[in-house]
């Protein structure tokens, strides 16, 4: 019974790897640090799903406390980055010289 489901687990693992690589591309590319914080939040959630695949495929709930800790701490980095983001004047569509501020 476990052999046909291993194909599904392998497909899930490949999809999670591709999504992690895509999130890493946004971390590299992101114009501001908030994009990178959002992508790192997604990477932690991908990690939670990968641990879920591990738990389901091995039928062993040993990694479940790790999943609980990760789900609590995933947002801490995003909140910390957003908390200490420097403020500046809001952007409007009419052109204005940024040097005058």
């Amino acid at each position, binding site marked *: *019974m476990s052999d046909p*489901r291993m194909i*599904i*687990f392998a*497909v*899930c*693992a490949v*999809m*999670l790897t*591709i*999504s*992690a690589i*895509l*999130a890493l*591309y*946004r971390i590299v*590319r992101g114009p*501001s640090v*908030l*994009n990178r*914080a*959002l*992508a790192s*939040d*997604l990477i932690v*959630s*991908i990690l*939670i*799903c990968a641990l*879920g*695949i591990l*738990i*389901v495929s091995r*039928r062993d*709930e040993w990694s*479940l*406390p790790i*999943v*609980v800790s990760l*789900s*609590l701490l*995933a*947002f801490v980095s*995003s*909140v910390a*980055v*957003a*908390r*200490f*983001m*420097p*403020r*500046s*004047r*809001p*952007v*409007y*569509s*009419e052109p204005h010289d940024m040097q005058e*501020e």
Partner: protein
Amino acid sequence: MDTVNLILDWAGAVLLLAGAVLCLLAAIGLNRFPDLLSRMHATTKPQVLGIILVMFAIAITLRSLSVLATTLLVILFQMLTAPVASHMIARAAVLAGQVDLSQGGADCVPADDAANLDPPSDDSDEPAEEGSRA
């Protein structure tokens, strides 16, 4: 009883596949959307739902009461923390001037926060005071 176990195992595998597809959709949406706020829409919604489905898959495959309680706890934590993170990121983006407010969003900035906006100044002990105003 064995057929019930077989059905539940395959249901867990299908839920896991759905969770992985949703994570992939979140990563694709993160790269394809033009703005930070739309990227947050595309990322956090499938992310939370994907984690919920994966936790259901764990609970269905490992049919134990402690595992069910732990997975429900994970779902609760994720639903508590994901809106907080996205709200903080959106607020920091608006206050940092990275969002184009000319299309109608300027009234969503709180008045006291808009009054306290100051241009990016030189490095001083400002971040502590700015944090206390938040």
